């Protein structure tokens, strides 16, 4: 696979876990430790093929970040990786346009399946 993926999570361990899962995919990996940082990267011209997004973050939360991304970058697929597994939360992020929702702790097979499904679909 080719292209850049941005991992947005305030937890370094969570970012490391996702990087470990994605390391053999061929994708280049970037990180942002907040919603604000992710939006800054996108505003500065970053063109990722996929973005992983945590929901429970200090400052701009994941829901707010997702809303901003789907408005400014509607074609960018967002995979929400979250500890908040309430049915209502999952429904909400899907309604907001998330391409997939994966529960924490991130499961390797689930993450890779989501990546293949989404990037295959988008021709990356």
């Amino acid at each position, binding site marked *: 696979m080719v292209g850049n993926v941005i991992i947005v999570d305030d*937890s370094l*361990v969570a970012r490391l876990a996702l990087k*470990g899962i994605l390391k053999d995919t061929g994708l280049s990996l970037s990180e942002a430790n907040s919603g604000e940082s992710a939006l800054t990267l996108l505003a500065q011209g970053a063109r990722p093929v996929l973005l992983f997004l945590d929901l*429970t973050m200090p400052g701009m939360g994941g829901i707010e970040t997702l809303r901003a991304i789907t408005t400014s970058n509607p074609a960018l697929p967002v995979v929400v990786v979250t*500890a*908040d597994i*309430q*049915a209502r939360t999952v429904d909400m992020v899907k309604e907001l346009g998330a391409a997939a929702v994966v529960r924490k*702790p991130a499961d390797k097979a689930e993450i890779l399946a989501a990546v293949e499904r989404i990037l295959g679909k988008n021709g990356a």
Partner: protein
Amino acid sequence: MPSIEFTELELDALKETMNIGFGQAAAALSEVIDMQVILNVPKIAKVAPAEIASFVRSEIENPDGFSMVEQFFLGRFNGTSFLLLPESEGEKLVKLFTDDPELDRSGLALDSLERETIIEIGNIIIGACVGKIAEMLKDIVTYQPPRFFAGPLDDALIDRQVRSSGGLALVFKTVFHFEAEDVYGLLFLVTGEDSASWLKKAVDEMINGIAT
């Protein structure tokens, strides 16, 4: 015993574990009350034993009137948990829990109902949260029955609970709100020094597992 120090990465791993545990608790509660539970980012603090009560007090908006469910959990991950709710929230919680907005406010039964509701909510939240954390760290915990306290926040009460859990090393805290209702509560987990030592090893194993 020398004081246990955690690196930034270890604290981050603990916080992420707590985040997942609290997420599990929110999902369990949300299923019962059929309402979304909004979670705040968890906070971890290392607090000296003598300062735990004042720390808890400082985190509460109104320490003069509260309801508290306290429950000990036992395992390699062990300690005590406190679910704190402003006293005024009890009736709202009963309405949410019983799905009865027109709940009869008269009669003494409501006090008892509030107490039972808060204990049950505490049991659900604490069990889901502590159980998930233990599972992630490859431990298994058992619980003592939850106990209910109400009234002004009493430092001596907190001190007594903390001492009986075997000292103090770490305090974990989160705040949760119920969607569309002005109801909030705080959950604290307090671990002793022996448990903190085990937690450090457990998160190191988790971090090493990620790195490989």
